[in-house]
């Protein structure tokens, strides 16, 4: 007698990308395959400076478990990372450090700004605090909250996955992207 399964019956599997399928083969565009591979194996670099970092630890721990989305491999070397997760207040003096970390990451790279402080300076409307990390580096997804709950961080992470999955392979060499980096003073 088979065991009745009561829980987790509504599991969704990822839809395959549009393409031509036949016996033992599937043809689709390289872009979509690369997107699938990239988005389900993101290596995050946690840049945690305050309470949002604590929420991130909860997100990475067993209960919320960011590993479910293929991101259990926290990298502490910027060279091997795909996603810079900035969590917490960034003071003006730390701005160049954050920028340096971003510059050390290899393309393609994404940035997730977690919490009110990283997004806008938050309550620290003062002379020593950077009013949002987008003053020094380009940001892909903003997660609001003070601090955001782990669910919010996961939601932001899923948004990043969405972006990565849909990104064109030509984006990083496009004029628009170069202009964006140029506006931040990155060659």
């Amino acid at each position: 007698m088979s065991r009745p399964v009561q829980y987790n019956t509504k599991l969704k599997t990822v839809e395959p990308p549009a393409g031509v399928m036949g016996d033992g083969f599937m043809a689709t565009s390289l872009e979509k395959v690369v997107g699938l591979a990239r988005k389900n194996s993101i290596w995050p670099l946690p840049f945690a400076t305050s309470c949002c970092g604590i929420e991130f630890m909860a997100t990475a721990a067993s209960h919320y478990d960011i590993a479910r989305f293929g991101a259990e491999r926290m990298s502490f070397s910027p060279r091997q990372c795909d996603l810079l997760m900035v969590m917490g207040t960034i003071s003006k003096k730390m701005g160049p450090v954050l920028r340096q970390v971003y510059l050390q990451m290899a393309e393609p790279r994404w940035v997730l700004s977690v919490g009110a402080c990283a997004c806008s300076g938050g309550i620290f409307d003062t002379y020593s605090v950077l009013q949002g990390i987008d003053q020094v580096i380009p940001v892909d997804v903003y997660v609001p909250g003070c601090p955001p709950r782990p669910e919010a961080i996961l939601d932001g992470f899923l948004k990043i996955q969405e972006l990565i999955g849909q990104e064109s392979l030509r984006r990083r060499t496009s004029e628009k992207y170069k202009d964006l980096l140029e506006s931040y003073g990155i060659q």
Partner: protein
Amino acid sequence: MSLTNELIQQKLIEKFGDQLTDWVQPYGMLTFTAPKELNLKILQFLYDDPECKFQFLTDLQAVHYPEKKGAELAVVYHLHNLTDNVRIRFKVFTDITEPDVYSATALYSSANFMERETYDFFGVNFLGHPNLIRILNVDEMDYFPMRKEFPLEDQSRVDKDDEMFGRG
């Protein structure tokens, strides 16, 4: 306790006379004001005196009194006698347009970072300091943030995107 506030006060008055003013003892802590030219002499006297023995500089910082014209900046020294566990403090006042005060680094090594911090936030120019540069704030900063000369919210700031805060 062998070393009383009265004894310290008496010794200081014997040495420096009526140049020291505003003697008060809030919460039992002897406090007085001195002319800024005398700060090193007083520190040296309190350090060397066999009974005072104030050989530990607990804290050094500044206060800005915008309403005291000609004596806007006060530099406050907190001293501790570790033998008798007695603390005192004294202030020297200086004009904000000419904020020069002699550095205590030759006497207390701990004054080095504290004077740098005081310079960083209040712009007190410590004469004779070996390395008077900003310590906590960014080097590019061209103002002294703890002076009471800024409006609570500066509308001329460009590093704040007003539209995001309903001020656009």
